[in-house]
């Protein structure tokens, strides 16, 4: 997608584009299939019926208009946070702290939601903006500055900031300043003027989906059509060349992590304002971590993020039905998720397997030809058989 601006429109070139698209999609597709297959092996081994599990999973996700709406609703925070992680990746930064940025966004949105009294057309934008700022600060200030000016690896700092954010929310809710009077550690309900309107009655699908899709469009445009997008892509592909090209590398590191956090913060806001309407005390929303997977599977393409978010949203909504319908613990979907990420990252497996097969064939042929003298490739064969044995 990234080079389409340079594509000539001759049929041949277009053919090349299609092929490139196919190539881009094939790894994620294979990874998903392998993940599901291996997941079913685990389900079977642990004494459940894999077919039944997947059927109820699928029904839970897409079985009715109601469940489709809920899957879409579930995709909203995943699209936003996944987009955030993808922007970070595009700049060569691995923001694994989207979870914490999500929490900060949620906290900010909820606070503005119940503490401020405004008409809806001001209240909603203000709450969204507060969440965006909170997320951006959480991603940009500490991890961003630490990376840009002290070289602290963002994988660890964003993760640590995540834990800090979660403990911060505990602090706010457990006998803290945001706790609703009473005994339950939760915040007050936000004012209805800050509700994102529900699109399908009786489901969780809210106007948050429009926020998410708008974000996708904006990020896509920024990445591929603006000078800042150019800088970010250059930064991610070759930091030294970006510096050599005169780009403000340090500033862009901070900004990229800030935008990454901004989007994750919006995810928190969309979930609060569209679905939960209040903050509950919890250890994890789960969205922040799944967002990483969403971005990885999408290969950090903004459009791809939408599809991969839908997939994981479906796994999420389906999981509950799987637990009820087939009695398979819902956390199975995390196992599958882990497997999918593994296969995405291990894309060389296919290449390795085909090389190994080719070598075997060649070896057999040469052994048939002149017995005793094998070609000088013992080293490769040894290593490969070791690999295959794992």
């Amino acid at each position, binding site marked *: 997608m990234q*080079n389409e*601006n*340079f*594509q*000539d429109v001759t049929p041949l070139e277009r053919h090349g584009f299609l092929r490139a698209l196919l190539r881009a999609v094939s790894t994620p597709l294979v990874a998903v299939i392998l993940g599901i297959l291996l997941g079913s092996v685990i389900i079977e081994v642990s004494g459940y019926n894999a077919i039944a599990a997947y059927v109820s999973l699928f029904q839970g996700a897409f079985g009715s208009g109601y469940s489709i709406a809920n899957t879409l609703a579930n995709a909203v925070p995943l699209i936003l946070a996944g987009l955030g992680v993808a922007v970070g990746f595009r700049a060569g930064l691995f923001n694994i702290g989207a979870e914490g940025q999500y929490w900060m966004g949620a906290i900010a949105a909820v606070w503005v939601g119940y503490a401020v009294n405004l008409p809806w057309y001001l209240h909603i934008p203000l709450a969204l903006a507060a969440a965006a700022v909170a997320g951006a600060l959480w991603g940009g200030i500490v991890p961003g500055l630490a990376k840009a000016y002290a070289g602290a690896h963002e994988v660890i700092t964003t993760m640590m900031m995540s834990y800090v954010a979660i403990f911060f929310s505990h602090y706010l809710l457990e006998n803290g300043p945001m706790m609703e009077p009473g005994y339950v550690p939760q915040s007050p309900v936000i004012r209805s003027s800050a509700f994102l309107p529900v699109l399908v009655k009786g489901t969780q699908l809210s106007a948050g989906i429009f926020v998410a899709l708008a974000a996708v469009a904006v990020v896509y445009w920024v990445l591929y*059509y*603006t*000078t*800042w997008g*150019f*800088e970010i*892509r*250059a930064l991610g*592909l*070759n930091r*030294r*060349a*970006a*510096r*050599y*090209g*005169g*780009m403000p590398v340090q500033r862009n590191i901070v900004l990229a992590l800030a935008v990454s956090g901004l989007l994750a913060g919006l995810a928190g806001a969309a979930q609060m304002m569209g679905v939960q309407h209040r903050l509950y005390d919890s250890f994890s929303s789960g969205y922040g971590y799944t967002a990483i997977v969403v971005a990885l599977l999408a290969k950090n393409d903004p459009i791809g993020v939408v599809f991969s978010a839908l997939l994981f949203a479906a796994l999420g909504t389906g999981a509950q039905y799987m637990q009820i319908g087939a009695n398979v613990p819902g956390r199975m979907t995390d196992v599958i998720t882990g497997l999918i990420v593994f296969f995405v990252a291990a894309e060389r497996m296919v290449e390795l397997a085909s090389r190994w097969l080719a070598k075997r064939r060649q070896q057999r042929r040469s052994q048939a030809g002149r017995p005793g*003298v*094998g070609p*000088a*490739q*013992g*080293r*490769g064969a*040894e290593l490969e058989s070791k690999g295959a044995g794992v």
Partner: protein
Amino acid sequence: MGTPAAQGSKTANQPPILELQHITKRFPGVVANDDVSLDFRPGEIHAILGENGAGKTTLMNIIYGLYHPDEGQVFMEGRPLNLEGPHAAIAHGIGMVHQHFMLIPVLTVAENIVLGSEPPGFRFDIRRAAAEVKKISEAYHLEIDPWAKVGDLTVGLQQRVEILKAFYRRARVLILDEPTAVLTPSEIEDLFQIMARLKADGIAIAFISHKLDEVMQVADRITIMRRGRVVRTLLPTETNPQELANLMVGREVVLQVKKSPYRPGPVLVDVQNLVVADEHNYPRVNGVSFQIRRGEILGLAGVDGNGQRELIEAIVGLRPVRSGKVLFAGRDITGLSPRQVSRAGISYIPQDRQGDGLVLNFTVAENLILKDYNGPQIARRGRIDFRRVRERAQRLVGQYGVAPPNPSLLAGNLSGGNQQKVILAREMGLAPEFLIAAQPTRGLDVGAIEYIHKRLLELRDQGKAILLFSLELEEILSLSDEIAVIYKGQIMDIVPGDKATREGLGLLMLGARKSA
């Protein structure tokens, strides 16, 4: 030194110790070695001569077990070798000094030498290792301190460590892959003496080079490779440099660069007492001053790592200046950002073209706007105008003969020479008044080198100023109007290009002041 070839003739009839038969090695898109057959004899220096990319290193890596040939077989003393890895090659008495040294800077000399063949035992007996290294280094007259950290050694000494590594493992065949590329003239003489001694001890030496005079000087036999194939094997007594050059390139080549007379204009660049530190805060440039005039190429000669990189990066704004000044057209540009420097009219061809100069996963068109993607020619209010990007790309690709002429290819898919042309096109396209070229021809083939030299000279003749940093003395000598020699971050002397000699520059490069 004497003519080793004459001494070599007495061993020429010995049976070969190492023999290659019909070696073919393919990489995606290239046949690096194509049906190569060669042999090496004890007590003989067999030079493999070929341009960059001819396949010399690939062939040697096959002998050393690093690559596996797709076809063909290596024989040691008549027996087929099953080279399943470097350890097998080492076990058979093959040693190799790689083009890029295979050393670990943070470890000591002794640790580097014994690594992988340490004295036996679970514990690592560093004292015993050092003693053994001492013994070997004395036996081969290659003095070195076993306890020194390799990262602190000069390049010449590091090479010595590499050679000792081979002999610690009892090498009988020694491969030297472009060993002279990083050395000063006098270090090269030392190396040749070491080679002569080893030859007398009956070692078979494979000497890889793309420099004609060296090969003529030391080789007993010369094999010329071109595009992965052996073109011919001949004796130095029956050939001459011109013939070797023609065989190497495959056409008639002109060994001399044609250069118009030097017509210096006013001073354009004035560097005053520049002091620059490296990333560990260690001062690398210690008070450098020089001037460059319009219409002048100033060559910066020196052994690698004497502050050249830091000096250049400080001038273009990639590295902070500790003290001193850079004046450009009378304006103080010290401490400006890379973008400001570029906008002021200074272009820069970095020495690491893949690391600094290009984004390999960007298209050629994108790489061509890397420096002014937000300039008025390309962007408007933060938006990139892709029609203009396309237009510029088409124009520059044609003008500079980038092949294939398709701007939507990824830069990473181009050959080294064409990658350099993309950089050249971009930097020249900015219409600079001052061009800094850092090792602009490193690793390129003769055609690309000639092209780049021509372009540099054209720019000079248009009255622009050029700072040329190169490790190839020949390149410096043939292009420069003035030559500044840098040693340990200081300019030893600046000599007129037409008065400079290899030997004089060589002495200066080693720190001898004003003796040239």
